[in-house]
């Protein structure tokens, strides 16, 4: 059991680092076992540094930096253990323009391998859509879904 855990930990760690480095060429990130001598109970620390300063515990990162680190971890896990679909509800809300572009590039990179359902208010994120659904709240307090297949609508 503990060999299996260690094997997967190393794979996820490598994958997380690869996704992070792909977004932040000057940065680095890593997972660390808090107690490597006892694999059965050890915890996992996360360190990341988007712009190549010093590696820091994630608690020290800013709002946007931690969102990007969480996304790198999510997609790092995806590469090792893919889920059938990913549902992200305004995951891009804390991002500045540059990180928003990285987020969009990340979705484009993995788009052919999984289904993504993305809730957003950001125009740039809408551009990745194959299908766009608009939701409205009608006067009677009932939500309504309006759909538009982008390739048909020739937006």
């Amino acid at each position: 059991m503990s060999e299996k855990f260690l094997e997967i930990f190393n794979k996820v760690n490598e994958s997380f680092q690869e996704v992070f480095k792909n977004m932040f060429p000057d940065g680095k990130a890593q997972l660390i076992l808090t107690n490597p001598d006892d694999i059965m109970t050890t915890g996992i620390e996360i360190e990341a540094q988007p712009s190549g300063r010093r590696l820091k515990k994630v608690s020290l990162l800013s709002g946007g930096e931690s969102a990007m680190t969480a996304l790198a971890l999510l997609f790092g896990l995806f590469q090792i253990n893919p889920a059938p679909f990913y549902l992200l509800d305004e995951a891009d809300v804390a991002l500045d323009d540059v990180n928003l572009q990285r987020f969009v590039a990340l979705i484009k990179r993995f788009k052919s391998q999984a289904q993504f359902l993305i809730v957003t208010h950001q125009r740039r994120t809408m551009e990745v859509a194959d299908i766009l659904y608009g939701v409205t709240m009608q006067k009677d307090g009932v939500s309504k879904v309006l759909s538009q297949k982008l390739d048909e609508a020739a937006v």
Partner: protein
Amino acid sequence: MYLKSLTMKGFKSFAAKSDLNFEPGTTVIVGPNGSGKSNIVDAFLWVTGEQSARSLRSTKMQDVIFAGSAQKSPMGVSEVTLTFDNASRVFPIDYDEVAFTRRLYKSGESEYLLNSSACRLADINELLVHTNMGREMYSIIGQGRLDAILNSRPDERRVLIEEAA
């Protein structure tokens, strides 16, 4: 395997039967504040077996049933169906499509259906295990929850690796 459709009726603000059809690509959902986008996310969590009302932004599970409005009366039942394409037989059952349905009545009684015939929650959970969606459902990230993966304690993060094992 891929998601084919989500159908809601009487679930939160989706009083009328509402359908979202999916393709293997990327679907983006947009709309004004308060229009019902996060309710759609809650519908996914609920139909795949979520048992905690708090994770659905509610105090008791019956809060997911359409509560009525000035013009419409409250409904007595909430129903959501999530349909997967199963041509690749990732779900080890002999159907080209697999549809999970969850129903909740105002009385508190709940029903689960698999391709329209009654089943238990355990049956649905057992099938979902084959999809790597895992109990922690880290593939569904609710509004404001992206940081939760980072902000958990080091020992709580073990489960991310354990589920991938």
